[in-house]
């Protein structure tokens, strides 16, 4: 290389080789840039494809006359003559009212959130404000372990063990019901609520706490009056994201809810959720039948719903960052 520079670089063989080599390197560089940029698009493309392909299979509910005679939007949502709100997709006269499923989904989700949010937010507050280092060393890995348990294992535990305990404790008629499923779901919700709200608490600047303590507030008053309000958008985000997680979770409710599409207010009745309905019925459904399209419609609904819930959650996380930055 040095010798080629002493001579005129374009004229020596080495110089020519070097130029060619440079050219090849530049080509590789361009190629890599294009490839890598292409890969970055995959996430966006995937999200669009999910929407398009699930929407495509859900569309016949609005467009195909054949499907609409059995299941159109009115039949899904409005009470039907003689039958009211019934989900019986495989009976002689199929009925596709999704209201019992909506009720089941809401019941399980609300129970899960009501159970998980106070526990997880309190635990997060403890970890960030009061815990000694060793207590932190226990609670953080415990949450990581909980988050790492596959949902099918949680469902298994609820079905085999927890359902029996709860039934003998409360004397329920049905072993598998909305409360069992809700408590099972809360196990999936706790890690996400904990993680997001703990992040929010620890992003509150230390000098807020110092100021509060300097004014004579106790540690609890500081946590309750300064840290919690300061981190409130983050805690709200945690609740919203937890809600989104609970609505979409499948295996736990599929195994622990009893899967009976009952429309009632009782928390001790069996329920059937949207996600569990898809999981239980898609395997045996005739492709292209009204039932098939209704299941995809439910899937599309779940997708859109969780999409907006997650956007809301992220928006609140953004609000938290803006708020704390603005305050500093």
């Amino acid at each position, binding site marked *: 290389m040095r010798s080629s520079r002493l001579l005129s670089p374009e004229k020596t063989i080495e110089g020519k080789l070097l130029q060619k080599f440079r050219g090849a390197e530049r080509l590789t560089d361009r190629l890599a*840039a294009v490839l890598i940029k292409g890969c970055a698009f995959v996430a966006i493309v995937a*999200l669009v494809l999910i929407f398009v392909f699930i929407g495509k299979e859900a569309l016949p509910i609005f467009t195909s006359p054949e499907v609409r005679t059995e299941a159109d939007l009115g039949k899904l949502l409005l009470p039907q003559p003689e039958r009211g709100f019934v989900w019986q997709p495989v009976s002689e006269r199929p009925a596709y009212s999704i209201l019992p499923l909506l009720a089941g989904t809401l019941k399980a989700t609300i129970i899960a959130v009501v159970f998980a949010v106070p526990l997880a937010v309190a635990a997060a507050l403890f970890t960030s404000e009061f815990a000694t280092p060793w207590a932190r060393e226990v609670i953080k890995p415990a949450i990581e372990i909980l988050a790492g348990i596959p949902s099918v294992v949680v469902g298994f535990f609820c079905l085999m063990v927890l359902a029996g305990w709860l039934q003998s404790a409360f004397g329920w008629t049905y072993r598998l019901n909305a409360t069992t499923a809700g408590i099972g779901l809360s196990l999936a919700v706790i890690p996400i609520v904990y993680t997001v709200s703990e992040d929010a608490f620890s992003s509150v600047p230390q000098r807020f706490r110092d100021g509060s303590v300097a004014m004579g507030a106790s540690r609890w008053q500081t946590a309750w009056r300064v840290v919690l309000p300061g981190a409130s958008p983050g805690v709200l985000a945690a609740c919203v994201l937890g809600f989104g997680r609970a609505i979409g979770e499948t*295996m736990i409710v*599929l195994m622990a809810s009893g899967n009976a599409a009952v429309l009632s207010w009782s928390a001790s009745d069996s329920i059937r959720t949207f996600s569990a309905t898809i999981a239980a019925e*898609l395997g045996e459904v005739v492709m292209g039948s009204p039932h098939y399209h209704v299941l995809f419609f439910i899937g599309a609904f779940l997708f859109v719903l969780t999409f907006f819930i997650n956007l809301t959650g992220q928006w609140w996380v953004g609000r938290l960052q803006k708020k704390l930055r603005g305050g500093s």
Partner: protein
Amino acid sequence: MPDRTRLIGWLLQSLTGIACLIIVAMVVIIIGNIVIHGAGKLSWEFISQAPRGGMALGGIFPAIFGTAALVILMTIAVIPLGVATAIYMHEYAPRRSRLVYLVRLAIQNLAGVPAIVFGLFGLGFFIEFVGRGIDRAFYGGRLLYGQPAIIWAALTMALLTLPTVVVATEEALRAIPETYREVAYSLGATRWQMIRRVVLPQAVGGILTGGILAISRGSGEVAPVMFTGAAYFLPDLPTRLHNQFMELGYHVYVMTTQSPDVEKTKPILYGTVLVLLLLTFTLNFTAIMIRAQIRKRLRSER
């Protein structure tokens, strides 16, 4: 400060501690129950033999094999894709680029899509659209790829785990000091040379973390593979991309909910759950250890 206020504060503070205790207790109870009931079942025979006697005897080797095959295929798809996405966002894209904003939004939302929706997508897109298309184009319409298969299950799972890999890789890229890049450029490296020789070797830990977390997630997730390739019982192991396969999580689900005699299959069931748990925990533990190393370095660099 009045004593009463102090006392109430102290009580409420203890309540938050109790919330922590409850969570830890729940984790201990679940793990403990499974370990106590499942530990007796673990043996070399259990993990190396096929099931016999209507799932009441023998082992779960085909399910372990199927899960391993699934996550290997998934990893082959998700690692290059996820790493490239992270590299684009961190190394190529201009600051405050709109595209990066969109990609990040897509990744975050992809992470929030319910697993069952991925299953629907796998069926509607990979099997019905891509698979059927391949069959029509290359096999004269003979049904080969247009049905549930391990390749479609693996690709569906790859999409599900993509955010995990992207996030972990990005964290590792952030930990690489800017000076390393500047030095590489000053020596005349092209961007790609710099990435290949400097950034990628430095980011191996993060990529590994992401990959392991993805594998852990993929080996436990059931909903996405229910309709895209998993089967309850198969006489043969999957050898081709269009074969169906047995999966540990799916095995647990079917055995729990559809076993004709739960008492008889219970020991095997607990054993299977324990194997699945051990698998995911070992993976998670390894990933957490590597990640802790990276974070430590990130702190010391600053």
